[in-house]
């Protein structure tokens, strides 16, 4: 297996994500918007905000990841790039995985990097916990994008397939959301929750590319 086509697919996807102008920033705006609006909705009591903050950010992260997923494979089927990638001889799963990873890098990683700032708006205390949590948001976000990628690949030939992606991806988000939120509490099970979160992300990284590859072959057929 030559890595060159996979690297090229990664490079093209990264360029495409940034070339959309504000395209890569849209999830960031969505993420920040949700975090800013929630305190307005539930009041400014510091105790309450501190309690719900991490969970709200997980929900906002999951929903923000869905905003741009529609385009990662749909554009490829429309402009013919998918046909070219499928004929490179490289495994379609590796190509799909590289594209999804590039997409996470452009649109998902910034969300994790922004999370400490948003956590402060939820009255979290400034401590190293915020950085640990940012890493967990990054890890969980990776799983969100890979599961979302499966939805995106399955709806690659559907116009305005955003709803379809949500319906396919949201059930797959459940383990990540559960372990992610649990890992930021101090209740029972919170100690091992980061490991389960990591496991669910690894599972997504291992399984999702093959599901995407099968879906993309169907889309090209």
């Amino acid at each position, binding site marked *: 297996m*030559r890595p*060159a*086509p996979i*690297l*090229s*697919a990664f*490079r*093209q996807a990264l*360029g*495409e994500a940034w*070339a959309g102008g504000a395209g890569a920033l849209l999830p960031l705006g969505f993420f920040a918007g949700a975090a800013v609006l929630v305190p307005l909705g539930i009041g400014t009591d510091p105790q309450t905000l501190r309690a719900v903050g991490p969970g709200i950010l997980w929900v906002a992260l999951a929903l923000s990841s869905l905003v741009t997923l529609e385009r990662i494979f749909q*554009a490829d089927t*429309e*402009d*013919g*790039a998918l*046909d*070219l990638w*499928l*004929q*490179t*001889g490289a495994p379609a799963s590796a190509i799909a995985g590289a594209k999804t990873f590039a997409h996470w890098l452009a649109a998902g990683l910034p969300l994790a990097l922004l999370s400490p700032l948003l956590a402060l708006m939820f009255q979290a205390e400034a401590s190293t916990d915020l950085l640990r949590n940012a890493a967990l948001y990054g890890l969980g976000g990776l799983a969100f994008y890979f599961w979302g990628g499966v939805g995106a690949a399955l709806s690659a030939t559907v116009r305005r397939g955003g709803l379809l992606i949500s319906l396919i991806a949201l059930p797959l988000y459940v383990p990540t959301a559960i372990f992610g939120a649990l890992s930021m509490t101090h209740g029972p099970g919170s100690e091992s929750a980061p490991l389960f979160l990591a496991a669910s992300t690894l599972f997504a990284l291992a399984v999702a590319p093959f599901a995407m590859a099968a879906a993309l072959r169907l889309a*090209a*057929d």
Partner: protein
Amino acid sequence: MLRGVTGTVSGPLLSATGLGMIRGERVLFTGVSLSVAPGESLVLRGSNGAGKTTLLRILAGLTRPEAGEVTRNGLHHWFAHREGLKPHETPRTHLGLWAKAWGSGSDLDSVLARMGLKRPADVPARYLSAGQRRRTALGRLLLEKRPIWMLDEPYTALDAEGRELVLELIEDHLKGGGAIVAAIHGESGFVPANEVVL
């Protein structure tokens, strides 16, 4: 030496037997057999919707046929109606990306010059004309020598000079022992060794 040729070059580069395809409830074609030897060209003919593009996709391995088998004895180039060009890519970055992906060390400037893309070489594809986009995608054929070219309506959107250029590329490729399968609706401009009418 053509890259990707396996075994002896004397046999056909591309052959197919008993291909059949159904789309929806309609039988597009059945019992299509063909064979293309080095230096030979094959033109697919048929009215709109007859299944030329579908047959070409089957030959390229993109679509699975309902019946029959395809054997390719070498790598192929794919050039179709949808060029695979991203709006943010320029002719130079597009060709550079694919040269890297295929691991070919061809000289981009000479490919751009040959395709008449010297002037718009650094213009993003969203500002290019349809013909310039087609020329960019055709440039991929020159990045790496591959024995089989699959072309879907290669003349679409090209001006007279562009058609001349494509014809030149095709003739060069055939002379060099390559094979061509092309779906062409109107004048092919060259005399094909074989024709398949759908």
